[in-house]
Every structure is written in structure tokens, then in C-alpha cells.
């Protein structure tokens, strides 16, 4: 008896739910102004990537060109494909500071593990995405701007 009532319940509610779906698509169809996709090469000038887009890795610098990296090397250990090499050096006081932050764009998969694992929050994913190049040397980047600072 239960299944019979279930059957007739489905017969009534089924078409209603189908019509609900249909009303949504019809609304979209007759309103072609609403476009959610980016018309990429045309809107290149105004295109803004969304907040959490993962482009290449970037060392955050402030206005005085200072960063908070302490050359601890956690990002280097966490990088699954060895794209990061943190070369440390000693400053005048004999303290370990960042010498060169070497980053290879061509092997990077933009997984974001380095950004997640950095205890000082000094890394971020940049929003630029047009980064193809015929020259391989372009992808070997040094992320810090001044050596031995920190």
C-alpha cells in the first residue's frame, strides 16, 4: 500500500520538479545578456582574476622592499616537485638570513603548498597567468629583490 501511494506521489511531484528546472533554464535562455564566462582575448584590459586564483609564487614585499622571510626552508621541503631553493646567507651580525629565493616556474604546478606551509606568511600566489615563453631562462626566477636582508 505504501509503494502505491509513493508511486502516485512521484507521478504528481515528478513533473512539478521537472517544470521547476525548466523555468530556470528558460529564464536563462530568454535573458542572453547574463553571461558568466570571460570573453578572454577581448576583455584582456579589464580582466581581473578572482581572489583565490593561483598563478606563480610571489614573495610579499612591502613599500621599503622588505620581506619577512627567514630562510627557514619549510617551503623548500614542502615543495613536491623541487621548484624552490632557499639559499641562506649570514648578515653582518652573523644571523642566518635569506640570500637568494630561487623559484623555477616551469616545474611548478601551482599547488600552493609553499604558501600554506610558510609560518611567516611571506608567500602568496600572484594573479598573472599569461606567462608562457619560448625562453626557458625566463622561468628561473629569483623572488627576493635585495640579497642578505632580513
Amino acid at each position, binding site marked *: 500500500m505504501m509503494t502505491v501511494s509513493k*508511486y502516485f506521489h512521484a*507521478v504528481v511531484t515528478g513533473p512539478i520538479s*521537472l517544470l521547476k*528546472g*525548466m523555468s*530556470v*533554464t*528558460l529564464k*536563462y*535562455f530568454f535573458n*542572453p545578456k*547574463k*553571461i*558568466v*564566462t570571460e*570573453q578572454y582575448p577581448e576583455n584582456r584590459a579589464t580582466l581581473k582574476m578572482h581572489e583565490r586564483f593561483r598563478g606563480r609564487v610571489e614573495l610579499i614585499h612591502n613599500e621599503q622592499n622588505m620581506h619577512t622571510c627567514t630562510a627557514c626552508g619549510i617551503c623548500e621541503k614542502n615543495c613536491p616537485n623541487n621548484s624552490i631553493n632557499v639559499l641562506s646567507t649570514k648578515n653582518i651580525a652573523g644571523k642566518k638570513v635569506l640570500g637568494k629565493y630561487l623559484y623555477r616556474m616551469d616545474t611548478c604546478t601551482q599547488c600552493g603548498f609553499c604558501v600554506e606551509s610558510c609560518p611567516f606568511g611571506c608567500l602568496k600566489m600572484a594573479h598573472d597567468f599569461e606567462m608562457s615563453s619560448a625562453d626557458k631562462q625566463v622561468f628561473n626566477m629569483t623572488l627576493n629583490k635585495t640579497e642578505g636582508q632580513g
Partner: protein
Amino acid sequence: MTFGIPNFIGEIVRDYSPWPELALGINVILAVCAVLAVGIGSAPILIYMERKVCAHVQCRLGPMRLGWHGILQTVADVLKLLFKEVYSPKGVDTIMYYLAPMISLTAPFFTLALIPFGAQWQVINLDFAVPAIIAINGLGLFAILLGGWASNNKYSLLSALRSGAQMISYEVSFAVIMLFVVMISGSASLNDIIATQTGTIFNWWIIKLPVLGFVGFIMFMCISTAELNRAPFDIAEAEQELTAGFHTEYTGTAFAMFYLTEYINMIGAAALGSIFFLGGWQAPLIGVAAVDQYLLMVPDLVWMFAKIYFLIWLYMMFRWTWLRPRIDQLMSFEWKFLLPLSLILLAMGAVFTAMGWVL
């Protein structure tokens, strides 16, 4: 059985040439050309239409680059398909493999030949057109089974088996719903079915037979979607599970033929729907003389194609709105819901016609 196209070329040959028998041959060639023109000419338009409809349903723009709003995109795609290498994988039953797409094209072309696109625009006027269409529909299933079996691919075989089960089940209620129309209109000839709907919009079967006509129309759309193997009933193709189903292994022209079959089948089903329920090639007169005189000025061919394309648009909206049911849900939908309902519809139609409850 007569060739319905009153063509002056055939007449001239019959009247003035020394060999009047040539007229028959010329008529045959003209008929073949007419069917090919409708079938192959509509396919690129439909592919373009499908892309645009699906794009706008999903808040996209669709093809925009090639030509104005991407009109030339389908032309480019068709050319690409034709120039591709025809290739068969290892272990394929070659004869069956290449026979399948050819067989799949025969059924839709035969259906097109039977359909009156206008008062004078019909290739064959068969008195038993509806039973002939029911019979010829089986060929499409045969092609899918053959293609899936010959491909030497487990996904193709699975798809062919699913599709066989689906199409055999749905053919039952498809035949019943067609017989319902034959019963209420009293003829199996498509021309006579249109003739019973002469007059205003209220003489079309969708309105003329109170409530039952509308229910019948909805059921026809539902069952023909399943017969066309289109989403939401595209169990045979099921891109996400079976890659492309029975035509996974096909490339180039052979694949194009399967693709063409799908779209020509769609024209055939939409034409049948408009003939059965929407008055065929007749203008949608509303009974007001001031408006009707302008509606009558439009050629019947235009009305027929307007109705066909409206129904095709409905098919496309169905496809891009609704989800694909599982195979068991599909089967229970047919055997537990559609078939009993179509049988009830048949019985109710008999009661309505016998009692004369027709508008």
C-alpha cells in the same frame, strides 16, 4: 504510391521527349535530392542551434569567433570531419563496422520521404505511413546494436546493449501513442491526419480532443526523446560513463554519419509531432479574419518548418535542463508509467471518439 512533388521537369520530359519513361527516373532522382536537401541541409543549422541553445541555457555565448556570431563554425566542423582519416581499430569486424553507419542513415531518410512538408511538398504519399514509420524505426536500433557490437570495445558493447533495451521498450509506447493519433483521426496517412485538423488553431488535435490531446502531446515528446536517444534518455551515449557509447571507435565520415542520423532523426520526430498534434503545415489561424488573412499569406512550407524547429528547440531545452536517469529508472519509467498511461490514453481516446466528445 505516387510521387507527390509536381515537378515541371518530369512533366516536360513526359509530354515532349521521345522517351516518356525517363520521367520516372528523373522523378526518383528529384525525390532523392529533396530528401537529401532537407536532411543534410538541416544538420549544420541544427548543430549550430544546439550549441547556441546550450550556451545560453548555461549563461555562455557559444561559438562567437568564426563569422557573425560563429555561423561558420559548423561549416568548419563538418569540413574537418569529412577530411579526417577513416580509421578502424584492431580486431574490428570490418564489414559490420562500416555497414552500421550506413544502415543508421536509412531509417531517418525513409521517415523524411514520408513526411508532407507542405500541401505539395511530399515525396511519397503512403496510405499506411504510420505503420511504415513504426516498422522503419527498428532499423535505427539495428544500426546501434551493429555498431556497438562490431567495434570490439566493451564500452561500445555495453552502450549498444543498453540502447537496445531502451529503444525496444520505448518503441512499444511510441507505437501506442501513434496508434492513438491514428484512431482519433481515423486514418494512417499523414496527409489525412493533417486534413482532419483543418481550420483554426482549435482544430489541432492538441486542443481539439479536450485534455487527452495535450496529455498525448506531452507523452509523445517524452517518448520521442527516448526514441531519439537524446538526453535525458541518452543512456546509449552517456558521455560521462561510456565515453561516447556505440560510436566511440568511429572517426571521420563514419562518425559524421552517426551524428547526422541523430539530427535527421530529430527533424523526423519533430515533424511527426507537428503533424500529429499541431496541424502539420497548416497556418495557426485564430478565427479572426483580420489576422488570418496575413497568416495565410505565409507559405505552408514556412509554417511546417517553424513548427518543426519549435519542437526541436523544446528537445534541446529538455536535453540541457534535465538529468540522465539510471538504466533501471529509465526502464521502470517506461514499463510502470508510460506504457500504462499510453494504454489508458488509447482507451480514453476510443471513448472520446465514440461519444463524440471532440471540439
